[in-house]
């Protein structure tokens, strides 16, 4: 059973912004919000690191429990998606979410202003239906991870990406022992 997840490798992220631009383009996200935020910690100081913040597709998502209109759901493959038709824009999910993932745009199509938008693992773009009203559903193939310049952002089945990540961590730990 697949369980889609993201892993962020802060020892690789260099804040190139590739994930940001890839996401904007792939999902047509309006100007004033972004499904992915890059936060820099200790800028200009020793230990400076960059963290990308998106929906982490939690195993037990607090937003799903919090949403008063059952507008957020977790799919069988682990992806947490939101239904913009149901959303009332109460912003309660943003309080429940420990990652600050839900966003509420003030620009873009008028009928979607104030309606929650967040990462959908690239399954659903910003406008969830096409011009014929058909729901859009795509393969779980997150562009932020695919385009990540240094492969700091890993997206995919949890078992696979954690294996990759663990390998890197192990490599770094070994290096510390044998290093000068």
């Amino acid at each position, binding site marked *: 059973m697949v369980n889609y997840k993201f892993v962020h490798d802060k020892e690789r992220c260099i804040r190139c912004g*590739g994930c940001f*631009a890839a996401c904007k383009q792939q999902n047509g996200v309006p*100007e004033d919000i972004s499904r992915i935020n890059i936060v820099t910690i200790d800028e200009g100081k020793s230990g400076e690191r960059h963290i990308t913040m998106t929906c982490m597709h939690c195993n037990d998502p607090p937003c799903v429990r919090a949403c008063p209109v059952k507008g957020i759901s977790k799919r069988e493959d682990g992806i947490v998606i939101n239904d913009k038709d149901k959303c009332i824009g109460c912003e309660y999910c943003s309080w429940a979410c420990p990652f600050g993932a839900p966003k509420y745009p003030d620009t873009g199509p008028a009928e979607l202003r104030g309606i929650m938008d967040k990462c959908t693992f690239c399954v659903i773009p910003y406008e969830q239906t096409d011009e014929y009203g058909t729901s*859009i559903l795509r393969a779980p193939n997150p562009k932020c991870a695919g385009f*990540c310049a240094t492969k700091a952002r890993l997206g995919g089945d949890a078992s696979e990406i954690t294996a990759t990540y663990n390998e890197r961590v192990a490599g*770094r730990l070994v290096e510390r022992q044998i290093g000068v």
Partner: protein
Amino acid sequence: MATKTNSIFGGSDIKLSRRTFTKLTALGTAAALSGINSVSAYPEGLELFEEVTAAPAAATNKVKSICSFCSVGCGYTGVVEDGVWTKMEPWEDHPINLGGMCSKGTALANVTNSPRRLRYPMEKVGGTWRKISWDAALDKVANKLNEIRDTDGPDSVFFCGLVHGSNEEAYMFRKFAMLFGTNNIDHQARICHSTTVAGLLNTFGHGAMTNTVIAMQHAKCHFFFGSNAAEAHPVFMQKVFVAKERGAKIVVADPRFTRTAAMADKFVRFRPGSDIAFLYGLINVILENGWEDTEYVENRTYGFEYVKEAVKDYTPEVVERITWVPADDIREVASIIALNKPSNIIWSMGATQHSVGSQIIRASAILQCILGNQGEWGGGCVPIRGHCNVQGVTDMCVLSHFLPGYYGVTSEGSWDWYAKCFSDTPSTSGKITFDELKARFDTLNGESMMTKIGFAVSRWYEGVLKPEAEIDQPHNIKAVVLWGEATSSVTEMKREKEAMEKVDLVVIVDPFPTSASAMPDRSDGIILLPAATRQENSGSVTTTGREWQWRDTIIPPLYESKTDMWIFQELAKKLGFGDHFDYNSIEDVTREINLAVRPIGCQGQTPERMKRQKENYHTFDPWDGRAKGGPCDGEYWGLPWPCWTTDHPGTPILYNDKAPVMEGGHDFRAKWKYPDDEPNAGEEIVRGNLPPTGDGSGTIHWTYNYAKDPTGEVNEQALAEGNPPTGRGRAMLRVANTKWVDRVPKHREPIESPEPDLVATYPTYEDKKFYRVMTEFKTEQQRSIAENRHVNYPIVLTSGRQVEHHGGSAQTRNSDYLVQLQPEMYVEINPKVANDIGVKHWDFVWVKSARGQCKVRAYVTERVNEKTAFMPYHWAGVFEGQDYKDRYPTDGVELARGDSVNIIASPGYDEQTQMQETKVALCKIEKA
């Protein structure tokens, strides 16, 4: 709800009917704004509205191509739906980037579809921009160029740019200038890595990165010295991190705590412009501890004793005084790079853009030779080039002192060779003899201008502004052709602006109107020609690691824009040498390059081989870039030059004498002009194990005469004998050319030095006339001291890149995504400086130097120390605080504009190449 489309669930990434919306946004505005009903490139645009009921299956096309920003050579897939480029997808198995791209790369579609593109040729008449037809525009340009050619001579035209063009376009550009009859042609490599070329070429034999990006994974220590790869070449860091996870160390030496430095094991902050002293400090410590590779130094280098002598005085304590780096830090860095081998030295503009740039590169190369890293996988010199094809355009020598393939312009033999190639090539019908070619050039004092080095792009404006008597050409420059050249990347911008106002004609060939269209204060005489972007035409591009990749057309040129090849062909026709440009396809040009460009081994990169590699990319191992089985078995990705024959796999590691030449082995160049004072040096330079060659004379035992052999037989012979055609020589730790003032590098203070005491001990060069213009070294340095600039302008200003923008940034400052990420120009200042002048983060400040001033935001950060300030160099459109947005053509106003750091940068130039010294200037910062 209308007809349901054939939406694909799960299987594909693309929801087909989405294309209509994108097309409407991309083309609706285009048609509306261009004032015409049908856009030539998109006749089907009118059917947009009928698709609601029909909703036909869209023709989705996925095209793999190569990114056109930095030089790492990342591959991507463009998704084209019904002729509209809607999306990007990662090219996940591309051997170099494995799908990874930075923000610029992922915004490529956004850049190409930008509504701010130049849509049709335009001319500025009476202060307003007017649309003109292509025919009229080309006629005007050609007539004016012909007129100048007749009255003032061909040298009164200056061509520059084309750094993003393919190898083919670059070759055509140089050929164009050759046939026009001038050496006044240059491109951005002059201001980015010309010192690297000069430094490495005179040390090793080739002036290029000695590794591939892929090989970086094999290093045990990465020493970043004047490179902020994390921002300038993000995907390069992917390979660095792989190495790090395999135990490699990262050391960063930089005046600024960059994002690269943040990921380092050891960071040292040194004073801008003290690079050679720092490197010599390292070499001093290495020699003192006996960490040098004695065997390597003995077998593979020449002139070690001179280096030993030169570094003797640079003890860590002396170096501490010069560089502001604690002596213990120097010792620590030396131990890390010496004890974790193979180590390398990675640089970009931080090392090259100095008045001693060539010498800094020489010192870096010497360091690598002493450690024995040169020629190892992951070791050696790693200059990362700046633009997607700056390596290729350098190889095709859009330069005022070389012909394609580094044939020097000063030798008539080079011209003879090219006259032969132009006539013999099956790709074109034109014929020309050497004498006819020579006749196309002007003469000065009875000597042909053909063998005279032309103006450099960093100083071309002096050809306009200086009196005729002071420049080494018959008349002043009267017209300038900016072919994808950002005027904001050249220092002394005020003089450049003045020159652009003084010339008779400015031609700008670019996909965007660019800030160059707005900079000169003139009401007529600017012609804008809309060029296709690199995503709209094809050709081969060379990565920083010398790998040739085929760049495919994603979409045909939008609006009325045309490919560079088309423009060259039409313009050549109108100038009377169209028969030399009657190529049927871009591949024909590649074949002409295969024929002509021999010194660096461009025989193996045929269009067929490149395309075959592109189709079989999955057979290449990303660990070493070599194909394992399949149709490309044994070939290295991109056939890194030198690739001597069509059977050669390419040379990923230059000067690697451990592998057979047919497996990518190589060696230092053997053929040098012997130093006059050492007539027998040839014996020393050449390694003794070469077998005698075919002609029996015994005199050419040191090399093969392959560079002007049109048949390629000499290459075959050399390979059969197990040698690279360049011979087997030694690395020249002391340059052979006696014209160099410092044959072994020596620290010299920058032109504007914050340390007048040190200037007395380490003065710069004497003034020198080269590249047709007098260049002030000592005079300007002394002027700086006389004017007390180190007191009046107490902060050292350095400049560099932002990850979101690129070069002069005509493309990236017009992309919404990138502007959202990086909307404004700023100067990074230390919190102490900010507090002292009473400025808060993001307030406006004036940055002033002896040349001018910039009004920018203050970015308060500890990245810089209190003696240094940093500004990105991508910005233009604002000049000394004055926004030029009204001067652009309508609809072409750049989305984000900012003041240019090069208005205030230093007037220093490299002593070998006229490289501008952007990295060290003195400034002061005031509250605005």
